[in-house]
């Protein structure tokens, strides 16, 4: 199954799901459309586009046209690990506070993802954290204090 076929199937499934969910909202009628009117119509349109896309991708697949480039798996791993590190930052930001969470995530990005030597990564992370803290304070951006909260 090609990526386009998979995506078309996903769009069709999404359209069906949203139309079912939108059906639970008050639909109203044409002269007084309710909250469910617009999302239901959009979901139907999405189903139609999904169906057309599915037919198009199946036709293209038969003609051997669906060749999608893929990133090298090693480098795609970098993107996935980076996302996981950032999710960890989101989870730890409020409990740990900006300073601790930022230092840790910078360390992981410089040392873990970019594979710099750990002392260099630690020094860079500390510098980045301190400078970023000073800059955001100057710009009056509210930052969580976490462990350092009074």
């Amino acid at each position, binding site marked *: 199954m090609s990526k386009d076929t998979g995506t078309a199937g996903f769009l069709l499934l999404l359209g069906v799901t949203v139309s079912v969910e939108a059906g639970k909202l008050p639909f109203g009628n*044409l002269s007084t459309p309710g909250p469910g009117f617009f999302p239901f119509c*959009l979901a139907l349109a999405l189903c139609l586009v999904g169906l057309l896309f599915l037919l198009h991708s199946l036709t293209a697949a038969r003609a051997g046209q669906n060749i999608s*480039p893929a990133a090298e798996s090693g480098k795609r791993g970098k993107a996935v690990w*980076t996302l996981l590190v950032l999710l960890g*930052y989101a989870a730890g930001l409020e409990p740990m506070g*900006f300073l601790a969470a930022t230092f840790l995530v*910078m360390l992981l990005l410089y040392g873990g993802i970019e594979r*710099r030597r750990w002392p260099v990564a630690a020094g860079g992370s500390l510098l*980045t954290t301190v400078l970023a803290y000073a800059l955001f304070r100057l710009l009056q951006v509210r930052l969580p204090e976490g462990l350092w909260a009074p």
Partner: protein
Amino acid sequence: MDVLHSVLYGFSVSLQPANLLACFAGVVIGTLVGVLPGIGSVAAMSLLFPVTYTMSPTAAIILMAGVYYGAMYGGSTTSILVNIPGEAASVVTCLDGHPLARQGRGGAALGMAAFGSFIAGTLGVIGITVLAPPLARLALRFGPPEISSLLFLGFTMISYLAGGSKLKAAAMALLGLLLGTVGLDPIVGTPRFTYGSVTLLDGIGFVPMIMGLFGIAEVLLNLERSGQPEIVQSPIRGVLPTRQDWKDSGGAIARGSVLGFFLGILPGIGAIVPTFLSYGLEKRLSKHPERFGAGAIEGVAGPESANNAAAAGSLIPLLTLGIPPNVVMAVLLGAFLVHGVQPGPLLMQEHPEIFWGVVTSMYVGNAMLLALNLPLIGLWVQLLRVPYHILFPLILLCCMVGAYSVNSNVWDIVTMLLFGAVGYWMKQWDYDPVPLVLAFVLGRMAEESIRQSLVLSRGSLGIFLARPLSAVFLITAALLVLLPWLIPQGTNLLRKLQRQDGPG
């Protein structure tokens, strides 16, 4: 006289110290963003959202607009020196700009890009001054049916003009519209698709969404590319173009400015399409088209003028109709709304200081950019040498803090990362996020106007065709959809008729 009076009033606003500082900060940040890889003007503008909360609406919009057209200037620097476009709108500048740099004429290319951008930006501001007032007066006659049809035309153009598959673009637009329905219904306030979540009652955050789609996704994609770009090593000399350069480029600048300005007004065009069209036009008109691709200075002047003029032109539908024609203007619309200002036909009457202040600040900003870019080229070149492995954690940190500071809510970071993952996969699988974002921003307006139209007509869909302007918009949209089918059919018919007439 009235317009002159308004322009002078605008300068009295834009030259106030706070607004002047905002303009300066915007163009510097914009140039920086344009020079540095890995962060575009959209992501940079969304990062600046929290910073603008403490500013006046006028200063905030001036700052954001400055980032946009500043990035156009900065993007040309990397195109010429590194053969990597700093901004998507500077792709075409690589074709002749980099060969010029390799020939030791990088300074002339940079100088012509800066001057062309300045002239086009200035002409664009004059164009706004002339076109915006009558368009705003026309827009006052728009009712819900006209707005619905205009938005439908806009969505159709966005899908039609999207690079790649039209079906994919249409799917993305529909997805954007659906995402826009999450939260409270705009008319009766019923929660939709919130599933008991208090966070989702406010809908999906616009700032986290665009930071994810354009900031995080871009960084993730850049992580896959290895190596540091190769910068032209020869010293940058002679940034002032020669008399021959001006002779070669004068026409290109004029044509690029006009082309870019009028195309920039249209939805879905952005600043990229005008640059390609300008390049193609100059090559077609040139007496020596073989020079293009090998260092023709008009191949730099035309596209750079077109992208700056398009940036100015794209402000017109936003300021006069409240409809952003591209994703950058969508971010600017977000900035207006955050400050409690609704752009549209009444903006000039209700907030003349914002309207004319922003328009005249573009003139001031263009002058600042010309003064900044030429003497500081050496500094921008040094910035290009900063390794990406140092830059990307900083960009990610700015995105994370930017998303968090919108509502001091960690779920905004999660939303951003989710859209970052979505944007990453979209780019991998050749889906354009622009239709999704534009549809998301305009969805609420579209729903309100369609429902209001149906209430007005008591359920009759004929209202959309009964009103002349609305009918014009709908027929244009229908023609656009049918055009890819009509053109070949028409051509085949013509050929058949010609064969029937035949020789003798």
